């Protein structure tokens, strides 16, 4: 039996296997991260996730671009849609609590600001944004609620951050909603689950140099 083809085959197979193992390790962060969300959060922790500057249109019809800025303001950013009955309302409640903490500590001049990006541009009209703000007692000085000024701007921001909104078949969306900590230059410094809002606030205050 000619053993040469078997030897070269085993060598080729070993090389292919090694290459594929190396690729898999690269794609899963050393076989530790199996989901896109875990990879996204790792990228944020490492400072590799950048939020592009995107103009947001508020309930009052004003357009404002929160970052980048030279004021050193740090943002806690979430993604909502105003018709959302579940997670966005929960986010809203957490943001109401965050706002209360910021107001107690800094009054209207907080180095940490809250931003809610409403991504359903078709339905998140200024009047709906206003209702959302009223429902959650949002204070304009501390909490910016706005929708990206254009569809392209919305796509740019969501894609850059890896936020994906999937139609739920009932007229709403399911999305990887979480609190994004974004510094004044637009670098995402961490992504936190809703119930981790105290940690998000603590880290935000650290970034502004405020004693916690």
């Amino acid at each position, binding site marked *: *039996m*000619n053993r*040469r*083809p*078997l030897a*070269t*085959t*085993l060598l*080729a*197979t070993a090389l*292919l*296997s090694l290459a*594929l193992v190396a*690729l*898999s390790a690269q*794609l*899963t962060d050393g076989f530790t*991260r*199996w*989901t*896109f*969300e*875990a*990879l996204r959060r790792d990228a944020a922790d490492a400072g590799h996730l950048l939020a592009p500057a995107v103009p947001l249109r508020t309930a009052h019809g004003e357009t404002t671009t929160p970052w980048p800025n030279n004021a050193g303001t740090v943002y806690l950013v979430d993604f909502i849609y105003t018709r959302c009955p579940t997670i966005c309302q929960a986010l809203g409640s957490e943001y109401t609590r965050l706002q209360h903490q910021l107001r107690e500590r800094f009054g209207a001049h907080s180095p940490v600001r809250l931003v809610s990006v409403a991504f359903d541009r078709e339905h998140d009209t200024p009047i709906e944004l206003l209702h959302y703000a009223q429902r959650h007692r949002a204070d304009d000085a501390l909490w910016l609620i706005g929708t990206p000024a254009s569809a392209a701007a919305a796509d740019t921001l969501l*894609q850059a951050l*890896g936020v*994906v909104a*999937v139609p*739920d*078949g009932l007229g709403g969306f*399911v*999305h*990887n909603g979480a609190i994004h900590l974004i510094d004044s230059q637009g670098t995402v410094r961490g992504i936190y689950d809703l119930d981790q809002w105290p940690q998000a606030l603590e880290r935000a205050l650290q970034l502004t140099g405020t004693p916690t």
Partner: protein
Amino acid sequence: MRRRLPWALAALPLLLWVTPLRQLLESRMLPHMLVELPLLFIAGWALARALGPRARLPAAIDAHGLLGLTWVSAVSALWMIPSMLDLSLLDARLQWAKYLAWWLAGGVGRGSLSRAGPVVGVFFLGNIAWMLATAGLLYQEAPQRLCVSYLLDEQIVTGQGLIVLAVLIGALAVRRLMAPISPAGACHPAPTSAE
């Protein structure tokens, strides 16, 4: 007609250039994993069939079909990872790499499986079936979404679909093992003259 069918199947991936069709297949998890990926594999298989022996990997590096079947196993395993499904929807490079990898898997799979003896063939088919079943159970049982692009309900149904596919491949492996061993199917490298 029968001659044209493999070519028609081989050309199926070209339909993925049609964005609405691609979105239709990929906007839900079940057609993405259990229609698109198998169709790409079948398209590659059909192309290999249409091209005949010249589509095989060189015998010198594919004795017993080991190299080709390793590729098929690796591609199957890689695309069971939840992050790979999401990344293929969010990164155009990975999207086209996915199409090419599965298409190639079908192409080399046909030639390599015909080279493999019953034991080697069953080993690889069994491994793929086991891996699909494991991934299927994981998708079915996970309490939260594993892919940001898909809903939890779809994930559960896809998990069940993967288990069904695993059973079918497992049955194919058993059938292969039960088949009488012919000299051509025995564990001998294919003669180089056939290449």
